[in-house]
């Protein structure tokens, strides 16, 4: 346990060290962070929306078969690209029930690159492709 905490401390230290150097490196790295081959559908309730550059995010409480709730961080494309795909910042609301088909993070954290989102009203929105990093 102690060792684990120590590792967390080191990880936070590393993050702090990297922060000023690579302020926005990874929005180009969908392919590095997520595994499209493991794409799956997660259903749940929207808890928060962050309509920001470089990529928008929203969070979903997903209940598993045992009733345990996990909050997932769903990453979308940038707001300008989403607007052109028919999204608006009001399209998702806290409390909406949605189904997200997405590529989960390779490292097992509760993050996914949302690829399609089925909204509360049944509309299915294209949200991402989770393709390999290129000129994103």
């Amino acid at each position: 346990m102690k060792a684990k905490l120590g590792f967390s401390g080191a990880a936070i230290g590393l993050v702090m060290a990297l922060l000023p150097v690579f302020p926005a490196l990874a929005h180009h790295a969908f392919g590095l962070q997520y595994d499209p081959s493991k794409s799956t559908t997660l259903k749940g309730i929207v808890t928060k929306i962050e309509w920001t550059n470089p990529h928008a995010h929203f969070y979903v409480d997903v209940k598993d078969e045992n009733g345990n709730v996990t909050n997932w961080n769903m990453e979308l494309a940038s707001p300008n690209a989403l607007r052109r795909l028919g999204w608006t910042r009001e399209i998702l609301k806290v409390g909406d029930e949605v189904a997200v088909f997405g590529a989960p993070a390779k490292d097992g954290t509760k993050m996914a690159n949302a690829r399609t989102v089925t909204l509360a009203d049944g509309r299915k929105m294209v949200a991402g492709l989770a393709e390999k990093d290129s000129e994103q």
Partner: protein
Amino acid sequence: MRKDLARLIAMAFSAAALLIVSSTLAFGQDGQEKHEPPGVNPAGGGVPMVSLQHLRATSFGPAPRTANGKPDLSGIWSPANHLGDLSTGLKPGEKILIQPWALKLSEERQTAAGRRSDTKANCLPDGVPRQDPFPWKIVQTPNLIVFLLEGNVHSYRQIFTDGSDHPKEDLEPAWYGDSRGHWEGDTLVVDTIGFNDKTWLDGLGRPHTEKLHVIERFKRPDSGHLDFEVTIDDPGAYAAPFTVDAHSTLLVNTELMEYWCIENGAQDVSHIVGE
């Protein structure tokens, strides 16, 4: 059993997603995509590129002209093809004769570690001729033509067409260099020097030096297309100049939007850790 079912559902959703994307891509075809075959994503770019497919002009007239009779290049244009990997757009017989040091650097930049140094990834300008998967806008006036770039850096290039030359001395090395344009018939010729050596020429990290000299030749053959040739002349990194053909399509029913790569930089920490 449950796993199989989950896989089946995932496959069904994959197919549905593909259908949605395919139908989006189908917009703007009708044989008009002579430059960019549907589904091909020359600059990469994923969602941003898909988000533009249905905005491509599908009916074309003659190229508009300005009051002084020159073709008017003004409009909102799609990211050009062939600029993600310059070798894909080489004119017949052309070769990229890259110097050994530059080849080595390009290969290093293609590694996961090397990509960290990409100016694009660090929210810095692309330079010339590299582009992003976002629209760009040409605003043409008689003495000045401006390229407005939606992203990756919400920025601009200025091309002076007032007959002036590059400054003779004390040219500060710059991300987009110093651009001067003139007309040769219906072709806008843009001559750019004065670059710094920080940018990548393309997504494969082909480098350049401060000796870089770029000549772009823009034509608007009809209202909906912008064809251009880009000649890269950099004796510091390439044994000979080479020329790439690139093409953009007019985008309609949209405007430039804001895109700020640097906003919310903190959210990217998770990506870095994920990497």
